Every structure is written in structure tokens, then in C-alpha cells.
């Protein structure tokens, strides 16, 4: 943020005030915290719909439909002919308006039609996503157990790959409940997945803690360096 202009100074000042309000929750919930919490939700709720309109509906739907993407040159010719097919966008838009029947007692089932349509589309996209993204990952996970490079055996890489595949299989086996486990090899191998899962959770936990703490450090730096300086300037002390 630019704190050299008066707007910049006020922006830093309010940002710091909000940060302190949020951190005041560590003591206990208080009106200062709740005010900024509600302000944040309000701003987020105001920004979200505008982003949908500004970044999606307007450039991708409304502008092509109105022919605003076509340039009229000085001699009357155009950059491209108008595509009347774009008017078909009115159909999904009108169909999407069925969402608002959710407020009608009598016709609320119409909202279910459009919700069902959206769920169906997302279901099919999820199926496509599984085969398009997860299947290549599954095949890629079964790495060669013996790694050779220009005729020589690579011990470290081979051990890593063996450990990778064994961990993958043991953890997958741990979550496999479809068949009876008692007495079978699968059942006997299942407990081996737990310690490996714990190693994974620990690493994941460590990464998350470090990421959050990095944010905390950034916030503290912002308060100590930027906010103090901006406040001093605003109060005429700096």
C-alpha cells in the first residue's frame, strides 16, 4: 500500500485498526471485533456479486450478446459479423432466474429444477475431472521400483520409489473396508498404514503452522512498522 498520499495513510490506518480489532478476539469476543467482523462480511458480500457481473457476465455474456465486442470501422465495415446465436444466452439466463421462485410457497419446486440442473452439470464435471485428473495421477504414482540411469543402478532413487509405492499401498489399504479384514493379509497389513498416516499428518500440520505463523509475522510487522508510522503522521507526531 502507498502510504505517501493522504488516502494511502488513511488506508493503512484503518487496515491496522481492523487488524487490532480482529486480534482483540484473543482476549475475548468484544464489540470492537464484532463490528469489524461484520464490516468484513459486508464488504466481501458486496464484492462477490460485482466480481461475477464485472468479470464474467459482462465480458462473456452481455457484451457479445449486445454486439459490443464488434468494432465498427470509419468506413462502416465491422471487425466481425454479429452472431445472432449469442442471443441464445437469454435461455440460460432466464432459466437461471428460476432460482428466485425459492421465495414462492407455491412454485418453489421450480427453483429445484434449476438447482438440479446445476447439480447435474457439476456431477458430470466431477466425473470428467476424476478420469481426466485423478487417473493420470494414479498411474503416475506407481513409480519404477528399480531405477537405472545410463546402465547404472540408482540406489537412493530406487529406495525412495519403493518407500513411495509401499506407503501409498499401505495407506490405501488402511482405508479399505469393503471386504472382511479378519485373518486376511489385508487385515494384517492395515495397522501398518497408521504410523505412515501420522507422519503425513505431522508434515501437513507443520506446513500449515508455518504458513499461518508467516501470516501472523507479516501482520505484526504491518502493525509495528507501517501502522505506527501512518498513525504518527496522521497525529502530526512524525
Amino acid at each position, binding site marked *: *500500500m502507498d502510504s505517501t498520499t493522504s488516502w494511502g495513510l*488513511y*488506508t493503512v490506518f*484503518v*487496515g491496522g485498526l*481492523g*487488524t487490532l480489532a*480482529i*486480534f482483540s478476539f*484473543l482476549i475475548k469476543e468484544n464489540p470492537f471485533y464484532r463490528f*469489524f467482523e*461484520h*464490516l468484513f462480511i459486508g*464488504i466481501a*458480500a*458486496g*464484492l*462477490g*456479486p*460485482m466480481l*461475477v*457481473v464485472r468479470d*464474467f*457476465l459482462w465480458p*462473456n455474456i452481455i457484451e457479445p450478446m449486445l454486439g459490443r465486442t464488434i*468494432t465498427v*470501422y470509419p*468506413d462502416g*465495415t465491422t471487425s466481425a459479423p454479429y452472431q445472432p446465436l449469442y442471443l*441464445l*444466452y437469454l435461455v440460460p*439466463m432466464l*432459466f437461471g432466474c428460476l432460482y428466485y421462485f425459492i421465495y414462492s410457497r*407455491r412454485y418453489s*419446486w421450480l427453483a*429445484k429444477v*434449476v*438447482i*438440479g*440442473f*446445476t447439480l*447435474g*452439470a*457439476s*456431477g*458430470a464435471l*466431477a466425473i*470428467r475431472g*476424476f478420469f481426466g485428473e485423478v487417473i493420470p495421477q494414479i498411474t503416475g504414482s506407481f513409480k519404477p521400483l528399480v531405477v537405472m540411469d545410463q546402465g547404472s543402478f540408482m540406489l537412493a532413487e530406487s529406495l525412495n520409489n519403493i518407500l*513411495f*509405492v509401499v*506407503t*501409498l499401498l499401505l495407506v490405501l489399504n488402511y*482405508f479399505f473396508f469393503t471386504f472382511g479384514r479378519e485373518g486376511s493379509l489385508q487385515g494384517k497389513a492395515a495397522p501398518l498404514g497408521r504410523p505412515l498416516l501420522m507422519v503425513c499428518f*505431522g*508434515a501437513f500440520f507443520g506446513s500449515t503452522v*508455518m504458513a*499461518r*505463523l508467516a501470516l501472523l509475522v507479516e*501482520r505484526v510487522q504491518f502493525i509495528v512498522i507501517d501502522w505506527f508510522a501512518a498513525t504518527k503522521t496522521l497525529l502530526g507526531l512524525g
Partner: protein
Amino acid sequence: MGEPLVVTKQPTDRRAQIIRVCTFLGGIYFFLYWLVPEKFVEAIGLTERHESISNGFIAVGAMAIGLGLFNLISAHGDRIVFRKQGWAYSLALLLGLFSMLIVTIAQWQQGLATTAEVRKSQVIGEFAQRIVEDSEKGASVPPLPVRVEALRRYTGERLAELDATTLAAGGSDGPFQDEVRSAASSVRLSLAGLSAVGGDALSPEGKQALIEVAKAGGKLGATESTLLRNRSAATTVHQLYRFLYDGVFNQLGAAMFALLGVYIAAAAYRAFRIRSVESALMMISALVVMMGQISLGQLISDQLPELRQWLLEVPNSAAFRAIRFGAAVAGLMLAVRMWLSIESKSFSSGKGQ
């Protein structure tokens, strides 16, 4: 003899059927697009229309944006009007909502106006380029002299308009204005070369002259864009947007995430109490990852960052993938059930609220 048995369909059954059919139809396009061989999709011309069709699907969902706004305004407006408990917080929420809506709309409109203004200059270069392309292709367009005359007239009018509006305004953007003036001079100079374009066929000299106009026009558009965007960044609307977005939204979002850091650190204390071999493994793994990331870890051992990297890339990655695969299979089952309307009978029952 009793009454003949008449089976009538309830309206709710028909509604349920409509909902199920629509749910199925919603997914059939994307499913078939993935399933059908690519050659066939290309042959029927679906590849180039796929983006537009996908946009149509997104447009259906995008129409629901008003629902959230309506619910928020109705719930919090009710609390304010009837002075219910916490009405002042609702007021803060609605204040944030409306101020962000108004400022974002104003900033967007400003951006559209700037784009439209810049577009007028960009047309010079594009039109000159278009004349060259159409002449080479032999497209059915007005005769070449008519088009060149139209280009000359439009460019003259645009440059005069620029002098009277954009370049007439004073301010602290002198260097940017100088760049636009220089680009405008280049356009004027390049226009002089258009006298080489004569007759109905485009001569090599004429083509070169038009290419010069195209280049100069392109530069004019780019410099004007920089100037106008620099000017709009200094407007009150833009400053207000930055104030709400950078000063409040971004700062509060970062603070909320950082606050979670404190709670995670507290949770870490509880989680790291070693009660079994497994919790010890978890603690060691977390400690290696954390210490390997900071300089203190390097002071303890040079190998710690490498060990951290290995831990993340081999055992952690393998175990995490196994979890992901399990979740993905479950997600696949859920998606199939959702698409075929067997996930929730109550949803597709067709009954009202």
C-alpha cells in the same frame, strides 16, 4: 362390481420427474463431451462452440447472485428496522455491503469509459491493418480510396478530439501526456504517407504507408491507455475502491487467517503431547518440517532442510496421494449418484418448501 381402479399421477410426481430429467440433462452435455471421441466432437463443430456452451452453463449459476444479496439485506434489514439485538453490527454489515457495491460499480463504469476512449484511438491502427488484410484477401469491401479517405478523416477528427480533451487537461501526468503527444505526431506524419495509396489496387508503397499508420496508431492507443489509466488511478472513486479493498477487505482477511495461526499454535501444544508411538511420529515429522524451514533448523543441522524436503516429497506425498485417491473415488460415487438423482430423494420429491 366395484368402481374401476383409476390411477392418477400426483402433481408432485410429475414435478419430481421434471426435476430428475433436468438434473440428468444438466450433466449429459459435459459427460458426452468427455466420452465422445475428439475427432467426432471436432467434426460436428463442437470444439469451437464448447467455450460458449460452458459459459451458458455458468450463466445459469451466475443468475443466483441476487439470492445471497437478497437474503443478507432481508435478514439484517429486519434486525435494523425492528432494533433487534445486535442491530448496530447489522448496520455495519449493510454499510460495508452497499459501500462496496456502489464503489465497485462506479470504478467499473470508470474503467469502461476509459476503455471506450482508448478504443477510439486503437481503431486507427486496427483499421489501417484491416485495409491491408482485406486488400490482400480481396474481400468485398468499399473501394480502397474510399476506405483510405475514411481512415484519413477519422484519424484527423480523433487527433483533434485528443488535443481538445485528453491533452488539454493539465495535471501531474506531464510525462505521460508528452508520450501521447509524440505518438499523435507520429500518426500525423504517417498520414502524410497515405497519398501513396492510389487506385483500386494496393501498391507496395501504399501497403507500407498503411502499415506505418497501423504501427503509429497502435502506439497511440497504448500511450493513451497508460495516460488515462494513470489518471483514473488518481480519482476519488479509485482511491475509495483501494481503501475498501486494500485497507479493509485484504487487511481483515489476512488478520483472520493470522488469528487462526495463534489457535493452531495452541492446538499444536495439545497435539504434541506424546501419548503413543504414533503421536511421537507425528510430532517428529511436524518438528522436522517446521525446523527445516527456518534458519534455526539450519543452525542445528545442515541436513535438516534436506530431510524436510525428503519428508514432504516421499512419505508425505505418498500418504497424501492415497488419501486423495480415496476421497476422489468417494467423490466419483457421489457425483454419479447426484447426476442420476439417487443421492437425495427429498430433493427431487417435487414437494414445496
